[in-house]
């Protein structure tokens, strides 16, 4: 079973070897899976309607219409009010804390209260209009990860909390989408013990499919190097399958919804 061991690995040749094996293997087609809804298999090809895949003779391979899961996956709500209600409900079930705030001043006050109650000494943040407004109200030390001196992971590790904006919130799953370009890089939303997200209610979308489609549209071909859907505070069930929050990422997740 074990293969011969080339002394020097030739990158190009292993690429060709693998692709050749795959092409050879795929010469014999495999039928579509047994699905209960045959219309799914028969939907026209998205990019090339009405033709079967010339190689396999089976229905064209790209069988799923855009957002095919939408009618069957959990509901994301049809109106902004419904979406907000579903989101809030999901977040609470996930043990995230939701704070509804009238305006930015109210949000700043809420965060300052949290900081006082937990006596945070150092809080990390990133450049963003909404975040800057709330950070100004804090009396503890603050450090900006995307400031002129760059991000310092030692310093970030010593922060009790990180405050970020987010790209979107997903009602369907109770997720928050952060990215590495506009939500403070990769470390800010994961390394500090508490993660606070400041968002506007109009950032809520229905489904995961909506969120990904919108993200693609926003960034065009230039997606940030990281897109992360955060669904509740970090957790583990590795010890006797008992739920514990705060495994490696934030133990607390606060979602401050403005508007």
């Amino acid at each position: 079973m074990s293969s011969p061991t080339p002394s020097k690995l030739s990158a190009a040749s292993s690429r060709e070897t693998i692709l050749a094996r795959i092409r050879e293997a795929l010469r014999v087609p495999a039928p579509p899976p047994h699905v209960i809804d045959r219309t799914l298999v028969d939907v026209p090809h998205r990019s090339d309607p009405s033709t079967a895949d010339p190689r396999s003779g089976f229905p064209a391979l790209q069988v799923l219409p855009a957002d095919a899961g939408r009618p069957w996956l959990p509901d994301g709500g049809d109106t902004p009010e419904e979406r907000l209600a579903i989101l809030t409900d999901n977040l609470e079930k996930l043990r995230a804390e939701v704070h509804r705030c009238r305006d930015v001043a109210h949000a700043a006050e809420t965060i300052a209260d949290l900081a006082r109650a937990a006596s945070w000494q150092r809080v990390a943040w990133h450049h963003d209009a909404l975040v800057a407004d709330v950070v100004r109200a804090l009396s503890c030390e603050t450090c900006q990860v995307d400031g002129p001196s760059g991000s310092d992971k030692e310093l970030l590790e010593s922060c009790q909390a990180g405050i970020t904006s987010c790209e979107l919130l997903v009602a369907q799953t109770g997720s928050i989408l952060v990215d590495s370009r506009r939500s403070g890089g990769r470390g800010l939303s994961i390394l500090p013990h508490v993660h606070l997200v400041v968002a506007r209610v109009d950032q809520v979308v229905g489904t995961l499919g909506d969120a990904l489609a919108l993200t693609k549209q926003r960034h065009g071909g230039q997606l940030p190097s990281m897109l992360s859907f955060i669904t509740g505070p970090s957790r583990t069930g590795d010890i006797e399958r008992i739920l514990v929050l705060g495994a490696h990422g934030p133990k607390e997740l606060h979602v401050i919804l403005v508007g």
Partner: protein
Amino acid sequence: MTTLQHNAASGSKESGKKLPSADSQAGPVPPKRQFLQDAAAHVADIGHRSFVRSALGGYYKSRDAQKARYRDWEHARDAASLAKWSAVNRLDELLEQFAANFEGRGGKVHWAANAHDAREIILELVRQAGARAIIKSKCMTSEEIHLNAALEEEGYGVVESDLGEFIQQLRGEPPYHFVFPCMHVRREEISRLFEDNLGTAPTDSPEELTMIARRHMRRLYVEADVGITGANFLVAETGQISITENEGNARLTAALPRMHIALVGIEKVVANLDDLSILLPMLATAGAGQPMTCYNTLYGGPRQEGECDGPHEMHVVLLDNHRSAILADPEQRDSLHCIRCGACLNVCPIFKNVGGFTYGTTYQGPIGSVITPHLRGLADWNHLSGASSLCGACSDACPVRIDIHHHLLHNRRNAARTSPSRLERLGHRLFVTAATRPWLFRTAGWMARQSMGLARRLKPPLVREWLASRDLPTAPRETFRAAWQRRSRAAGARRPEKGVSSASSREST
């Protein structure tokens, strides 16, 4: 190094017993004998079985609750299985598309035909990085190629950051379950393990134990030069990899070190983000009863201009390692649709009784029994296809509708074709002879009925083994045919049921 190829773990039996490290016992005990021994030991360990069952109890409840939130789970399974089918059946195209897009974003793709090549590629990258400390997040492909042993042999320290994997690393054991690596370990054992290895105070609180690991690991993330992860999906359209995790350790592993290496099986590719948006929630629901796993993260290359942190280099190692052999079997090609949610293990009566180590494979449970013969050879691993009651619970649980239990039958058939057992063939020939001759069938049936009680008492060889874990039912006093005739006679003067009774004579017991 060469011995690393074949054996994940000649598993230990009882809970708590230390296992020799992955490769040390590959030789002497053939996998089948090992399986039978370990299975027997496990089945006898009632305490362990009930512990595993109760650990899974919460899973069933939350999974059902989450499934109920789907507007139609069965249709969602259709969509998920088609998404994977359409990807796997044009794997060449999508992999090339993925590689081009990922490299266009500044990442580097490496192709590894087998385990050896994958290890060499990663070792070379780690050398180039001048790494002193390596942190890893959960990655089953690295178990498959025995990466940790290879890195350690070269003098690199590797730390598993996923809590379950960390515990297993300290115990010197491979994962027990490919999603819940240490579900068989009791909290007292973990407390003692941490006491011995980390010098912490004993505790019986899962919360406190988790915090010990959290505190221990934080420095390591900051200090590591290289982070190694797996990936759950490769998105061809955008050139991103997608990682699903609950703890945040993969996020940290891909955020802080200078270099990020992801080792990913070639079958993980999906066409686009739309398809991913179906698969992510289903993976979470089927795998752990969650609406969505805590962190689902897409990485497309290293840090970009204008981003304040992240690795300077990102490498994806695409691993074939016999996957193309599965691809070449159109009948079982769909076993490559697997998204490794672990649902089939959680519902499998065999898994729950024999435990994860008994399989002796990287991938345990029903799906492991399907693919391991392809990965390591049918001759040595066919016995796994017998480790099934064919109840079909696995196929029902599978979010991408893999016909798992039929594939176990296919493996049995293939094994019989390649190396037919003489005894089995003789048995079949005798059966056919008897079944086509009613007088012989009756006589044989009569003899069997007479000897059943005797067999139970005397336990002759052959039968003894069978009886070790089963009861022999008491023989009925009369055959079905005789009972039917008596009944028809009793029904009396009504129409004589000629047709029926002559049909039944052919199929009577």
